[in-house]
Structures are given as C-alpha cells and as structure tokens.
C-alpha cells in the first residue's frame, strides 16, 4: 500500500470501487471538515483490478460510517489508533438513511415540499433494496 503520510488516529477505507472515492468523500461530509484526507485513486489490487483508498485523520468517534454500508458494504474500514490498525470494521446495511440520496419520483411529496428529509428504508435486505419512506419508490443507488 502506498504510504501517504502515517495516520495517528483515523480511518483507512480500503477496497473502494475504482472511481468512487470522491463520491464517498462528499457523502461522508469530508469536504466540510478541516482534517487531513488522502484520496488515493486507481491503486492496483489483486482482488479488484483497480481500487481506491481513502485515508482520513480524525477522531474515530467523529465519523458516521453507516452511510458507507449503504454505498458499498464491501469497503474495508480500518480503524487506526496510535499509528496502528487496531480494528477492521464490518459494514452492514443501515436500516434507514437520511438525506444521502434524493427520491427521484416526480409524484413524491418530497418533490414539492423541500424541507422534508429524504428518508430511505431498507425493505429487502436480501436484495439490498431501499425504498422512499413516503412513496415507496425504489432507491437508485449508483448515480
């Protein structure tokens, strides 16, 4: 693995599908914080061909990684403390995601009432199906 600065405390998100790291950067709200973030793109990988890696220097309690489970639960979350990987977290599908994606159904109440949160609920864990809480339209995961 490339070593772009050692992290003292934070996360190394590994096995991100190539090209998706920037999307994840925004979905995790990393653009809004002042921490050191390394986005490493197109790393060669035996398993995936190419992959992306995100390194985030931060308090490990600070980041909400639930949304990652929705985006891609195959991402490996390495928790770093004292410069060492202390834990590999398993991602699960969150039961509900709020304001991560928008409902695209033009007949949905969220299309006319802007202040409503966009809530999607996991309705079929087997097929990873999320539906809009209001109109039950299926979520389109990949943009």
């Amino acid at each position, binding site marked *: 693995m490339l070593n772009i600065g050692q992290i003292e405390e934070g996360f190394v998100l590994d096995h991100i599908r190539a090209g998706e790291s920037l999307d994840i950067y925004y979905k995790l709200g990393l653009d809004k914080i002042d921490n050191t973030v390394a986005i490493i793109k197109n790393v060669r990988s035996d398993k995936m061909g190419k992959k992306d890696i995100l390194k985030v220097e931060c308090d490990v309690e600070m980041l909400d990684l639930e949304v990652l489970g929705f985006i891609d639960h195959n991402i490996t979350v390495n928790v770093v403390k004292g410069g060492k990987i202390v834990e590999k977290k398993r991602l699960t599908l969150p039961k509900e995601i709020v304001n991560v994606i928008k409902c695209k159904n033009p007949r949905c109440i969220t299309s006319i*009432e802007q202040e409503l949160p966009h809530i999607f609920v996991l309705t079929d864990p087997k097929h990873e199906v999320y539906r809009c809480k209001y109109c039950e339209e299926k979520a389109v995961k990949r943009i």
Partner: protein
Amino acid sequence: MRHLMSPLDFTVKELDTLFNLASDIEKHPGKYAHVCDGKKLATCFYEPSTRTRLSFEAAMLNLGGSVLGFSEASSSSAAKGESVSDTIRVISCYADICAIRHPKEGAPMVAASKSLIPVINAGDGGHQHPTQTLTDLLTIRSLHGNLNGFTIGLCGDLKFGRTVHSLIRALLRYNNIHFVFISPEELRIPDYIIDELNEQNATYEEVIKLDDVIGKLDILYMTRVQRERFFNEEDYVRLKDFYILTKEKMDMAKKSCIVLHPLPRVNEISVEVDDDPRACYFKQAQYGVYVRMALIMTLLGLEG
C-alpha cells in the same frame, strides 16, 4: 395513536375485528347512530374525488358526528403554499380525525407524522387507497361469506390499476385463493406483482378473453380499460369487447358469481347487467360506508 396509510397496516386479525364491527353496523345501524356525537371528521382533499369524500362524510354523519373540510387544493391554504405538516397541525385543533387525499405520494404519511389526531389516507397519487381495498375486502367477505377459498377474476387494466394491485396484495394474506388475470397483452399485470404471487405460492393464470374463464369465477372484479392506454386505435377497437361485461357473458357465469367494480364505471359493464342479482357494485359502495364507519370508530378508540 393509530393512522391508516396502507391496507396492510392492519393485521389479518385486526381486519377481522374491523370487518366484524362493519357487519354489526350493517345489521344494527341504530346502535351506532350516536357513537360519534360531538366528534368532527375533517376531509382534506387536495384533489377532487367526490365519491370518496362523500363516502367518508356519510360514514361520519351516520355515526352522529359532523364534518368539515375542503374538496380541492385551490380552495385551501395549500394554494397559498402552506405545507401539509402545517395544515395538519392546524386541522388537529379543529377536528378529531382526518381523511386526507393528495395527488402527491406520501403526503398523508407526512401529515400523520405531525398530526395530533388519527389520519386516514384517502388516496395519494398512484400509491395507496387503503379504504378502497378495505371496502373490497368487506364486500367479498360479506357477499361470498369469507375471505378464503375462491377463484377471483380481475379484468381490464391490470398494469396501471392501483386498486387491483392493492387488492391482490391484501388477498395474498388469505388462503386458497386462485387468481385469474384477464387483460390485453399491453395491460398485463406487472412482473413485480407476479413475483409476489410466486413468493407466496399463490396460484394464478393469465388470459386475454373474459369469455374463456368467466364460467369458473366466484368473484369477477371489473376495472376500466381506457382508450388512451392502447398503442393504437385499431387494437383498442379489436380488443375492447373482450372486456365489456354484457348480459351474454353473464349467462356463462356461475349463479353464485358476484360482480364488483370500484366505480365510476364508463362502459365496461353494460347497464343491462345492473338488474342481474349478481351485479354487486352498488352494494360495494354501500359497504364502503360501513367499512369507513368501522374504521373511524376503531381509530377513535370508540366501542359500539
């Protein structure tokens, strides 16, 4: 506090209790003439649906309650840009229970989440119309005798028909029901409904012509086939007679068959069928009032 958003909100057992109450209301209307004295129902209709609104209002009036509300968005505060959440908070101060119809899907759920009073979804776009489904179930239960063990034919536009999809889902919770889908190729039942039927191991068949199957049906549920749903006029002219219920077709049906239709009908059931004792669609409208009476009482926590 309990609301009604989808026909599946109630368990089969809870529906049984609700339908028992509705049946008792049918038999002894006098007993229930004052159970809602002093209570008010608000009908908040952001799009016109006169039949549904009047059915709700008749239900509340039959229970001794009174009604208030609006029948289209332009005559309400929504026209001034008020959100559904704000409207329901205000309505909560005026009424004890609210029936809301809205062209946008999920609007009644938004209302329910902020409401201080029970909210009934009276139709939200192409999404849900639970009191229609409850009406259909009560009608079948009352006229067929129970909700298990029959062959039901659903005829007409099975692709876009929200009423039909809801009814199928609701019936899938009962046993030994055989579904016969009668529609033109263009208006076939969607695959996701077929998937649900397969998952539940329900038996079904799909046919093009009503004539071929009418003789085996215990229940025939008719819906409209709209001209504009067809790709071309030629197909419409060629196919439309397959889906119009006539006296001749009724001659092929069982003596015990019951014919239902959510109404309003256009021409898919010829008026000559109306006098046939098996034509039950006007009774169905009556059951719509009974089931709404039972629903209002249940959501208000009132005993008979």
